[in-house]
C-alpha cells in the first residue's frame, strides 16, 4: 500500500529537489505544501503519514507545524530537512517529536539513509 508523503518547503526549487531525490521504487502518494498552515491543513486530511518538513518558512514555520501536530494529536512521522544547523534547533525539533534531522543541502543518498534510519523506508 502506498504511503502518504507530505513535502513542506517554501522554496519551489527545494521541493523539486526533494521530489527528484525520493528513493526510486518507494510507493508514495505525494502532497506538497509551501508553508506550515498548508502543511497542517493537509495533515488534518490524512495526507501526511510521512512528512519532509523545512523549518524556515513564512506564515507558519516548521517549529509551529511540529507544535500543531503535537497539540492536535495528529499522527505523522516527521523528518526535518533544514538549513538551520544550530545544535539547539536540532534538539528543539527532536523534543517536539521529529524523528530525524537532515541538513541541507541533501542528496539522494543522505535522504534515503535518513528515511531508512527512521524506519519509514527500507532499501531492500
Amino acid at each position: 500500500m502506498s504511503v502518504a508523503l507530505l513535502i513542506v518547503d517554501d522554496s519551489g526549487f527545494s521541493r523539486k529537489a526533494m521530489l527528484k531525490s525520493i528513493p526510486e521504487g518507494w510507493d508514495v502518494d505525494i502532497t506538497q505544501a509551501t508553508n506550515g498552515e498548508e502543511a497542517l491543513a493537509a495533515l488534518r486530511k490524512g495526507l501526511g503519514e510521512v512528512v519532509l518538513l523545512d523549518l524556515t518558512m513564512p506564515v507558519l514555520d516548521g517549529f509551529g507545524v511540529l507544535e500543531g501536530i503535537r497539540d492536535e494529536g495528529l499522527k505523522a512521522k516527521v523528518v526535518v530537512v533544514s538549513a538551520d544547523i544550530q545544535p539547539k534547533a536540532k534538539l528543539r525539533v527532536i523534543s517536539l517529536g521529529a524523528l530525524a534531522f537532515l541538513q541541507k543541502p541533501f542528496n539522494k543518498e543522505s535522504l534515503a539513509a535518513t528515511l531508512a534510519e527512521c524506519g519509514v523506508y527500507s532499501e531492500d
Partner: protein
Amino acid sequence: MKIEPLNEEENEILQEVINIGMGQAGASLAKLLDVFVNLSVPRVSWVSDVDFVDQVEKLVEGHGNSWAGVRQAFYNQLEGEAFAIYGANGCQQLAGLMGYTDDDEDDAEEELLLDVTNILVGACLVGVAKQIGKKLDFAAPTLVGIGKPIEDLLYRREREWDQCLLIEVNFCLEEGDFSCHLVMLMSEASIEQLRSGLIEFMESY
C-alpha cells in the same frame, strides 16, 4: 554590454542557496553571541549598479538616518564588493548582547561590526560558492562609517560594477530582533559564473 539578469528559475535556486548559506551564518552568530537565532527567509532582489543606492534607501525608508556600514571585497571566480548595513538599533543590540556598555571605547563596537560582517558575508558567499562549485577569496572587512546616512556609506565603492544583489536578512534573537541588509555588487563575469553554477547545481538533483 548589458547582461541578462537571472531568470525566475535561476533566482529561485539562488534564493535557496542563499537560504542555506544564511543557516550557516545563523549558527555562527548563535555561537558568537551565545543565543538562539530564529532564522527568517532572506529576501533577495537584483538592481543595476547605477541606481542601487536609491534602491537601498527605499528599502530602509522610515528606519532612521543613522546607519553603520562595513565593506568587504571578494575576488576569484566570483568578484565584487559586499556591504553590510546595520541600523542604530541593531548596533546597540549587538553591543548589549556582547556585554558592551556606552562607556566602552568605540573600538569595541567597530570590532564587533567587523566580526559580524565577516560571519554574515562569509557564510552567505562561501555557502553560495561552495554549493555551486566556484572559488572565492576575501579581503578583510573595513568599516566605512557609523552613524551616517545610507548614501554616505554606499557611494564609497571601489569601482563601478554591473549588477547589485540586495539581500535582506532578519535574525530574530530571543532578546529582540536584529536585522541587517547585505548589498552585493558584482561584475558581469561573476553573474555569468553564478548563472552557470546555479544551473549545474540544479542539474545535480
